[in-house]
């Protein structure tokens, strides 16, 4: 038997570990071990012979877990090791990204498991929940936004002049955008960018009309990959419409004023469509008496597609659109009514009608006391729709119902969001949100 030359011996907090340099190389150069074994730091100097060990003054139990992670790529946390402790040790060794990526698997709506439910202190109904790109989330309650990192540790809460928050969004893992109501006459509210970990305000966005800065109420938010921010705005006088800002400079770039008889500034939902370079703007019942869905092309300053239920015969009350989402691959917009019926509008025909799916489940009489309006989300070809206290997952070209996520505690789901390979669902009755994630793939 040959002698393995790259055996490394550690003494961590009094416990001896032996491993190979190859295993430690999995940590990467930007880690404690990567630097330790770099040519600059002559390790042999401390280890004149292989019987002498390299001492690290840290927790041995956590080191065992992390060493196992480097060996197998699998994260197994024994019950005697608190997660918080493990994360801190991973931070020390520079292995926190390894831990995060091993903690849960790639997102699949049909394999989700409840990871944790987090209870907050904030009073009142939740407004919105948004999943961050690295597995964290932020939750808006009234005028406060609570930020949680991917370990579901809470960071300092953020607010914009204590004004009511209408929407939130992650610009990137470090920055959260908040849109809030204005405070009359003071120029408070509007839209602000915050550091997600410290809660510091980094930039406040202005709306300029006729070279004058105006106070305004910011509504729904959306982002485009070319670093633009879109927000629906309601100003004092004329500033109704969609504002566009540059993420890098923070300056207003454009403003799409709404035309008479068509609502943009009150929009419930904005969605940037990358393929067609358009912004979907949906203003829905009951915020307005009618529903307006339109696609805006900012290059030509033009509404390229629009749909509205003005003038439609409202004989069946349940067919009111409550949320909409564009599905570019299918060239259609999916809408949902308050009974969780899905409908589809063809994007290729201007002014087409809604084709409601026949999957209608009439829930009359079974409605909870305090119903929440359904919400839609699309992720990797899977369609998600929230209704009461559960979320339905639809797959395939015909959108077949494949899974249902339900947790009895907390009441109806008022908002949910997918991102960072996690799904977050916010309940309305109790101040609770759930984090759902896909478990790591099975070992065999």
């Amino acid at each position, binding site marked *: 038997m040959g002698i393995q030359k790259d055996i490394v011996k550690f003494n961590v907090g009094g416990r001896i570990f032996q491993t190979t340099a190859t295993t430690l190389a999995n940590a990467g150069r930007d880690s404690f071990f990567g630097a330790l074994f770099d040519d600059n730091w*002559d390790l042999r100097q401390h280890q004149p012979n292989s019987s002498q060990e390299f001492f690290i003054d840290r927790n041995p139990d956590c080191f065992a877990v992390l060493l196992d992670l480097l060996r197998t790529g699998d994260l197994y946390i024994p019950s005697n090791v608190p997660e918080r402790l493990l994360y801190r040790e991973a931070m020390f060794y520079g292995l926190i990204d390894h831990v995060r990526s091993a903690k849960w698997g790639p997102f699949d709506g049909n394999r989700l498991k409840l990871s944790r439910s987090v209870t907050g202190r904030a009073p009142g109904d939740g407004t919105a929940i948004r999943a961050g790109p690295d597995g964290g989330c932020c939750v808006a309650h009234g005028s406060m936004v609570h930020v949680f990192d991917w370990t579901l540790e809470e960071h300092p809460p953020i607010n914009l002049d204590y004004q009511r928050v209408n929407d939130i969004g992650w610009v990137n893992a470090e920055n959260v955008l908040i849109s809030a109501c204005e405070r009359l006459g003071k120029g408070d509210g509007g839209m602000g960018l915050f550091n997600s970990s410290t809660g510091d305000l980094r930039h406040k966005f202005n709306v300029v009309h006729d070279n004058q800065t105006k106070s305004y109420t910011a509504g729904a938010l959306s982002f485009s990959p070319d670093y633009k921010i879109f927000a629906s705005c309601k100003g004092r006088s004329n500033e109704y419409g969609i504002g566009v800002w540059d993420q890098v400079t923070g300056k207003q770039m454009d403003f799409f004023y709404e035309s008479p008889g068509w609502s943009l500034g009150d929009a419930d939902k904005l969605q940037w469509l990358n393929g067609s370079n358009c912004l979907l703007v949906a203003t829905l019942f009951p915020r307005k008496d009618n529903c307006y869905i339109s696609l805006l092309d900012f290059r030509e300053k033009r509404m390229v597609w629009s749909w509205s239920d003005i003038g439609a015969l409202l004989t069946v009350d349940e067919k009111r659109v409550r949320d909409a989402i564009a599905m570019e691959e299918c060239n259609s917009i999916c809408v949902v009514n308050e009974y969780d019926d899905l409908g589809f509008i063809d994007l290729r025909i201007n002014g087409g009608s809604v084709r409601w799916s026949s999957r209608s489940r009439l829930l009359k009489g079974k409605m909870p006391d305090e119903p929440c309006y359904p919400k839609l989300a699309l992720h990797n070809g899977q369609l998600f729709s929230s209704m009461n206290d559960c979320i339905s997952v639809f797959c395939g070209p015909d959108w077949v119902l494949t899974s249902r996520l339900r947790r009895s505690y907390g009441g109806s789901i008022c908002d949910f969001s997918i991102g960072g390979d996690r799904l977050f669902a916010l309940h309305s009755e109790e101040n609770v949100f759930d984090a759902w994630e896909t478990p790591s793939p099975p070992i065999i």
Partner: protein
Amino acid sequence: MSNQKKRSFQIEAFKHRVVVDPKYAERTWKIIEHAIHEIYNHNASGLSFEELYRNAYNMVLHKFGDKLYSGLVTTMSAHLKEISKSIEVAQGALFLEELNRKWNDHHKALQMIRDILMYMDRTYIPNTRKTPVHELGLNLWRDYIIHSGKIQSRLLSTLLELVHKERTGEVIDRGLMRNIIKMLMDLGSSVYQEDFEKPFLEVSAEFYKVESQKFIECCDCGDYLKKAEIRLNEEIERVAHYLDVKSEAKITNVVEKEMIANHMTRLVHMENSGLVNMLLDDKYEDLGKMYNLFKRVPNGLSMIRDVMTSHLRETGKQLVTDVESSKDPVEFVQRLLDERDKYDKIICQAFSNSKTFQNALNSSFEYFINLNSRSPEFISLFVDDKLRKGLKGVTEEDVEIILDKVMMLFRYLREKDVFEKYYKQHLAKRLLSGKTVCDDAERSLIVKLKTECGYQFTSKLEGMFTDMKTSEDTMQGFYANHPELADGPTLVVQVLTTGSWPTQATVTCNLPTEMATLCEKFRSHYLGTHTGRRLSWQTNMGTADIKATFGKGQKHELNVSTYQMCVLMLFNNYDMLSYKEIEQATEIPTSDLKRCLQSMACVKGKNVLRKEPMSKDIGTDDAFFVNDKFTSKFYKVKIGTVVAQKESEPEKLETRQRVEEDRKPQIEAAVVRIMKSRRVLDHNNVIAEVTKQLQSRFLANPTEIKKRIESLIEREFLERDSADRKVYRYLA
């Protein structure tokens, strides 16, 4: 309650708060500071990474990140100031080496410092939006070393001097150069650009300005281009060896501008070696160089193209207007073809077959070919010459090549209908005299014309071929029906459809009785099989083979025209005939008769007749005898008519007139077609559309079109608009 009581119940704050030793931060920082010193002093082997990492970690954890960061900045700055001094004192060539060595040291130290402070890099720096350690180290190096007053200018001048040395042929240490340039690039693209690239480009521009001036004074164009090419390649190579890839476009731009763009006009027009001389001498290599170099600068190619075009037009103009060359049409066309071949080859070999150059060539040819109004005639004559005799012993492919080249010239013609006219005449002559060498070649050319100009253009030409074929069959039928004629003279009749063939005024001469009866028989045979047709004899176009016995019994077979036959046959019965008598007997038109007598009496070697008085020209009082002394070494003697191959001036005018006449209905038809679809159109648009429609056949003259319109108005096809006189309306 009293105050005293209150005092006795006072609660003290919990004093045993875990307070970090106030000196803790200071102490820990000292350890790290010491380590940084050791690293810079190459003494790192005594350091424990684990300990240092842990200390830095603890400082950040206990909120001393600020102290750690500012301490790092101070310590590193101090070291860099010292390094700056040691570089400053390095002398001469050692300067760059010292700089390079210190850079390597700093880079390694920076790496190790970053390792120690990894935790700070990861947590403290993103949250406080400070510069990460590695970038900080680079920025400090930039500020303290590269931008230090004593180093910055020295570094730049050293680098530029080295480049200059290399340009003048010295060998420099490229490795060192590469390292220093790489350092500048590592410090950020703006450092490289501001501290090196910009001045480098300026100095290069100056260098090449001087050098190109020197070259252009003493070199000819070819040499200059060679030198410019070498310099360009040198700069590209330099970039590949030790500069940033992005500099390549910039430095080549400088060389292109200084060496080519600024001297473009002078190079092209250089005496004895410029573009025109290159074209004249077929210098493909130099032309190729010029093309490739000029391609790199704006307007370079268009300049070459313009000079080539004007030169080509000039030479072409000389060629087509040269009186000498007009004398021989075949030579004329051959020279055009040679010229085209020459430029085709130049464009193909030197100008990478560029489309724009080909277009320039084509437009030039189109320009000067049409300068000579006889070009269509000459091209047709060239074809005629080739098809009559030129294609003997030539392979089929070569025939195709020649025909293709002719078609190329044909395409340049604006008056394609004139060509058609001549071609028809020449073809008719070839067919009727049986001179066409190769039927395949004839047909191939017709097909080419058809693809070029459409069915209409060639339908009549094809009709001529059909006539030839049917005539053959008719003759066979005639002799099959009249076996009794086998012994007499043989008659070959070609029945030509009126309209398909070039029209000739039918002037019938009196045929000898033997022939006249034969003709009559044929007429009744033909009209018997084809009712409702009319035959008229075109005696001016026929030929005859006659056997003649001269004075001493020498026998010859004479190949003569029909007219000549008529004259000769008269001498079967008479020994002497006067001009008047011949004219009376044959009724041949005067000019033709004179010509045919001239060919038989005045041409040496062919003089079967004798004339009194002996003179070159035929007079009306001349008398003619059979030349008993006629000899020839051939049994068969071909007596050609004295006929100019080229058209004479009056003939030319006549053809021209016929062409003009033919154009009239075509213009009218075009006007009516256009007006029928448009109903209402103004004058200028009518002219434009008519010109466009007729382009493939000829260039319609606007005044002529106007005349045609007037005529159509008179005949009430069109009317002028009552409000706007410039607008025409179509009358259905």
